[in-house]
């Protein structure tokens, strides 16, 4: 009873599954195959993508790993246990290293990536893999990047991406999960012409579809960079963004598809993971406008919010053939004022510490 799938996936012939037609085993088998394909590969594209221009993201500290970025990334299922991380970076001297730490449920995983390029995009990027060794059923996990330079030189980071590795065919046996949603792999051998079409197939397929509809996609992901350090003057290197600023609002967003039917299903949601920092003083609250709603963070660090789909579709929906939305901090007067934050105020150098938005991930279904 192999829970196999075909890639590229096979679709059923719609002309064969209409009223008054006999249900053929071919169609049923293809449905099982397609369902397994979706579970194995769905959402295995980029879950993290960010880039920096040259001379911005620098680190020259060789004494220890300096924690610099944080993101939230979605979990696809308890079976997707390999996270592939790709780093574009360079360092003039051998020995530059980036450390990625994944806080996932009750477990913590680490991988170190050694940087091999000696100039900007000179030869090759570097990769690492985090392999989970225990089953976790969290909705999302926090990924942290720390950087250590070799003695006497600086590391420069140009980009980072990550993706979950797709499951190979056949899928594992038994019930699989994403948080509390169950997925039952379909044994293709059980869907042949010489076997009965059981009630089990229909019931499980409906449950599987609902589970896969809830699987999150990353619509927007951004992290500020803390702890940057360079031997060069600030006008030449190291003035990396730590916070989303008012000058970002006109363009710092994604255009992403969200699908009709979400609103009618209370289990299909949009989630925002918000990282607010205040480096001293007393924090009261932090409000900003996100995806048509005013978010209030009552504590520093990461907070989670459920967002409603209130926005209008973007003009590019027609070109994509999908319902596209502007996903990111809203370009409002409130945000323009809130995000107009100077570096010296982040560090309290004028007597007052100002809170700032240091990270934001938005996931939809």
């Amino acid at each position: 009873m192999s829970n196999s799938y075909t890639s590229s996936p096979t679709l059923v012939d719609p002309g064969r599954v209409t009223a008054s037609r006999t249900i053929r085993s071919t169609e049923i088998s293809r449905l099982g195959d397609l369902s397994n394909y979706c579970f194995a590969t769905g959402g295995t594209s980029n879950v993290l993508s960010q880039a920096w221009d040259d001379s911005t993201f620098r680190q020259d500290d060789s004494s220890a790993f300096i924690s610099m970025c944080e993101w939230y990334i979605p979990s696809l299922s308890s079976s997707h246990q390999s996270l592939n991380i790709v780093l574009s970076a360079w360092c003039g001297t051998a020995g530059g290293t980036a450390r990625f730490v994944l806080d996932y449920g009750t477990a913590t995983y680490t991988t170190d990536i050694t940087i091999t390029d000696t100039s900007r995009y000179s030869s090759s990027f570097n990769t690492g893999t985090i392999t989970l060794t225990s089953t976790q059923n969290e909705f999302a996990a926090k990924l942290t990047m720390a950087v250590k330079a070799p003695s006497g030189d600086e590391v420069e980071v140009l980009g980072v991406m990550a993706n979950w590795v797709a499951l190979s065919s056949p899928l594992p046996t038994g019930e699989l999960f994403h948080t509390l949603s169950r997925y039952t792999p379909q044994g293709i051998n059980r869907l042949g012409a010489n076997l009965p079409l059981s009630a089990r197939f229909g019931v499980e397929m409906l449950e599987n579809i609902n589970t896969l509809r809830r699987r999150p996609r990353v619509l927007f992901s951004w992290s500020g960079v803390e702890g940057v350090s360079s031997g060069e003057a600030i006008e030449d290197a190291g003035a990396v963004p730590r916070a989303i600023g008012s000058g970002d609002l006109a363009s710092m967003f994604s255009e992403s598809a969200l699908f009709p039917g979400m609103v009618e299903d209370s289990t299909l949601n949009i989630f925002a993971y918000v990282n607010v920092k205040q480096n001293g003083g007393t924090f009261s609250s932090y409000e900003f406008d996100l995806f048509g709603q005013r978010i209030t963070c009552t504590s520093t660090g990461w907070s989670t919010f459920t967002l409603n789909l209130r926005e209008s579709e973007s003009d590019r929906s027609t070109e994509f053939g999908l319902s596209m939305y502007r996903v990111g901090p809203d370009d409002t007067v409130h945000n323009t004022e809130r995000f107009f934050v100077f570096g010296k105020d982040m560090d309290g150098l004028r007597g007052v510490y100002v809170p700032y938005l240091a990270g934001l991930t938005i996931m939809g279904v």
Partner: protein
Amino acid sequence: MLIPTAFIKLPDESGCYNGEVVMGGTVSQIAFALSQLSHCKFLGEAHYQVAHSTYSGSAFVQGTGARLHNYNQIRSAYKGYEYNFLYQSTALSSKLACLFSYAGEQGADDPSVTIEVRSTASNSYTGTVLDYGCEFVNLETQGFSLAPDAFAFTGTLLDYEPTNTSADLIVRPLFIPSANRGELLNIKVTVQDVALSGFHIYDVYEVEVTP
């Protein structure tokens, strides 16, 4: 087969129970719901925000750390400058649409952006060119120093397999050969007098797919 974009309502589970006559509509709804997942919802996408220096003339007084205005992004080094955006494609990544936000240098003669796609064998930035892609020419320039970023888009229409051996001047999505779909791909971007602030990559949704 027409691929729905919506999470269509699913049939009642009891319609599949023992003793029930399974109707064609029930199987049809399952089939369309699955095709929406495989060929619509789970199409790949990547959203790169590209950070730039936040240094400005007031930095000595105010410090750096956030982009407060649009100016001071365009540097002299942005001539013939390259970026490499890595994209984990899917089995259905036959065409990639690219959308980017940018600032064109004020007064520049012909700001342009060229995109092409390469394989990433041996983790190399200079892998085999899979599609020489296209060039956006004569892009907008900043009319004033605080002008917001502009956007450019490849569109989603490509009904032929490109054979060009240098960048096409007709803007179009990138084509991915079938052997490379599902691989990690490198979208190489070369800019002339342009600063990118965002680069977004999408598998193109097809309205109709032959089973």
